[in-house]
């Protein structure tokens, strides 16, 4: 999603948003990522104006007042924390641990295939289909990518091939390389 992202070319506009829209976005994020509740004030204080960046491909990036990207979503889809935010608050997303061999591919933007989630060193949380998840290397503290599970965990455990997690945002992609969008 952000493989070719650059601030100059991909961001079509950044604006402070109306407080009513801001409330809607906060409510949606809170609904989708309930674990954020105790930290929401620290991440994005209510009194601060959030900045919304419009990115090519109908992507919205919710940023802090300092233009630090925090969450993104596609059209009206679920909000997903950026990797830099997830690294600070790993509790925000369920944890999907991939096989060592998959790491390099995921870091180049590949989707996570089901076999990469089934090796002895892989381990996955129980998630429903279409859940937003964090992807980790075995034994790693830091997330490697975030994405959407295309299959429920139960289905991943039963099938043998195909895409398990769609790769939305990964280490060293364009968005990762922009700690701020200014």
């Amino acid at each position, binding site marked *: 999603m952000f493989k070719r992202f650059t601030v100059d070319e991909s961001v079509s506009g950044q604006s402070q948003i109306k407080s009513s829209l801001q409330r809607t976005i906060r409510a949606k994020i809170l609904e989708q990522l309930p674990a954020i509740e105790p930290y929401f004030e620290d991440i994005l204080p209510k009194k601060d104006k959030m900045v919304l960046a419009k990115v090519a491909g109908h992507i919205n990036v919710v940023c802090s007042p300092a233009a630090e990207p925090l969450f993104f979503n596609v059209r009206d889809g679920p909000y997903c924390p950026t990797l830099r935010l997830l690294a600070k608050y790993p*509790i925000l997303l369920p*944890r999907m641990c991939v096989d060592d061999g998959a790491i390099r591919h995921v870091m180049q933007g590949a989707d996570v295939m089901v076999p990469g989630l089934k090796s002895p060193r892989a381990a996955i949380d129980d998630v429903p289909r279409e859940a937003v998840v964090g992807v980790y290397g075995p034994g790693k503290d*830091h997330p490697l990518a975030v994405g959407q599970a295309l299959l429920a965990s139960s289905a991943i455990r039963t099938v043998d091939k195909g895409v398990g997690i769609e790769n939305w945002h990964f*280490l060293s992609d364009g968005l990762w390389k922009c700690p701020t969008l200014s």
Partner: protein
Amino acid sequence: MATVTAPADVDTPSGTAAAPAPGSAWSDSEPADAAAADAGPASGGGTGKGGGASGPAAPVTYPLVVEYCPMCGLPPEYCRFNSKSVFAKCKPWLKEAHPQLVPEMFGEGELEAKLAAMAVDGGAATASANAAADAAVASSLSGPKLVKRAGGRSKRVDPEIVIHTDQRKGRKQVTIVVGLDLFDIKLSDAAKACKKAFASGATVAKSADNRDTVEIQGTRAHEFAELVRDKYKVPSELIFVVESKSKKRAFP
């Protein structure tokens, strides 16, 4: 020439071999780490609403302080998944800060094999640099070439010259040539040669996908094909002309 580059690179494996102890510790401890890490955030996620500070052992407080490698910018855990050359730059810092993350164990033989392969590549490259121009063409025939694309990405492209025509403003035609750079032909020289040969304008331009091209005024596709074949000795089977949307050999 291979032997010149080899010692400098071979330095790395021998240097890493000097410290086997952290290596074995790394391989032993990792599965345990994995188990602990898996258990930690998983349970944290379940009780996240309660404050997330209910971790099994030491209470975890968020935000975590996250460290990034000063060389590659990734979390140090992932340094070794960089390309070999980038990881080599991370290593000095990594050895200081996180010795357990420098995988001495991991495939020393593999590393040496890679280095050997690189040395051979390097040798081939320098050899062709010394040789004459047609030798350079020959080496470019040997396989796909790396072409820089927008955003610093590179892509392998088969060495071939593709000539197509395009319309500019009104009914004006231009002939666009892509791929000259793959044969080590200087584009400005080629443009100059066109001006002379066709008595028309010719410039060096960047195409939309960031390839270097030569743009010639007028429809000169076949004339230009002859020119690159005769003047630059490009093999005729690698010259293509796009006509009515299909790419055909210029010299069937």
